[in-house]
């Protein structure tokens, strides 16, 4: 994404999140996000299969050691 479009993205997303940014900060944030975009592009190129799940898995409760519910 070129710098102009990144600036526009930062302005739009900040407005959506109700984050007030002045012009100077918008510029600096866009520079940071541009760096992160380069890292995201690296990851985008790494193969992931549909079954590769998230590293963090929600657990509804601790695993019970016995299958009849006994502690």
């Amino acid at each position, binding site marked *: 994404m070129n710098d102009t479009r990144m600036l526009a993205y930062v302005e739009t997303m900040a407005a959506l999140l109700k984050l007030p940014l002045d012009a100077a*900060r918008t510029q600096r944030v866009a520079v*940071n996000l541009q760096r992160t975009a380069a890292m995201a592009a*690296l*990851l985008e190129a790494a193969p*992931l299969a549909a079954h590769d799940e998230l590293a963090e898995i929600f657990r509804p409760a601790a695993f019970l050691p016995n299958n009849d519910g006994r502690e």
Partner: protein
Amino acid sequence: MKTIALDAAAMAEAVASGEVSARELLDASLARIESTDGRVNAFTEKTQARARTEADAVDARRAASQPLGPLAGVPYAVKNLFDIEGVVTLAGSIVNRGDPVAASDAFLVRQMQAAGAVLVGGLNMDEYAYGFTTENTHYGPCRNPHDLTCIAGGSSGGSGAAVAAGQVPITLGSDTNGSIRVPASLCGIWGLKPTFGRLSRRGSYPFVHSIDHLGPLADSLAGLALTYDVLQSPDALDPGCQALRVQPIVPLLGRGTAGLRVGVLGGYFHDNASPAAREVVALAAGTLGAHAEVTWPDAALARAAAFIITASEGGSLHLNDLRTRADDFEPLSVDRFIAGALQPVDWYLRAQRFRRVYRDKVNALFRDWDVLLAAATPVSAPAIGTEWLDINGTPQPCRPSLGLLTQPVSFAGCPVVTAPLWPTGTGGLPVGVQLIAAPWREDLVFRAAQVLSDAGVARVQPSQL
């Protein structure tokens, strides 16, 4: 007042034997802090009254022939993101100054108190742990005791500097992407980033829930091991604490490395290491008889994924304050926090999905190896204010690049002891070596570290303050 030149483990022995009192150790520690901290700037909070109460309680127990804990009378301090009862948990910020004081100690502080250790204060850090340099704009930069013009590393900079300055023999810190290992490396002390999920994080101010670790730093390997054993305890109330029982390390320290498969990480870890960093890795490898070069899987990708998750979770955590008082944030990191809050969700989800694949590849690597070696930082401590590093002819932005070698390892959750080594050509400044093992195998990295310590290759050197 006595001058006390003992390391953490020797202090505990001296108190237990009656050679020195806890109060004498405390007075020596407070005097050292008083005489040096104006230059080092490690402490942001001193808890003298509490410390005197804790020290006197230890001395009273000994006088009454009651059993003492394994760290009885040993002074220590904590990064100021740990809750200390009655103290506001700053986490390096001024935003938190208006928070109520902590109602109770952090879980690990309670573990230390139960072991008889004496808390002398809270320590400087990068704001909200987002940094590797502790150039804290609000509280001033933490200075390296071996060269006061240089950084102490971060984000647990005060935790590294306080030990290196001889103010306290033990500190506690946190490590998300390298924040224990970087200051341990740059200050020349021992540090442990345990397995992700080994130690409870309850009562510490979070940075990145998915990657945050807590751990000790110390002036001796014996002190590091004693402290680690004291800190261990399952904690069902920390959703990130996965350890189900204590696995003491001290009884295993002397087992040596005979039969262990020790390798040296090449590729990414070699390419991003300066000559000094390569020198200390070669010295450690020679001592441990490690000759094979090993390739860590997807190191650069792991760093990218850790960077994205860190920015996203960190930005989200502070979004409300970023909306209303961004000007009160650390100028060195506030724009990164905001950029993190604005990241597309696909970047974050892809990074989390990658982490699972990556974890499996790293664990597979440890089917062939027991301990792997890499430098902890690309370079020795840079001067305060440094913007760019030259790493083998490639200019790299200083502040994020200090974590180049630590970030891929913590992202896999592996345990790491950082050993203090002293290369040539750095003006007397140290560079640490990471000893890395498979998750839950802290025993292996401690055994290798003990060999380096016994050989005198890894050691803590007194600072000339």
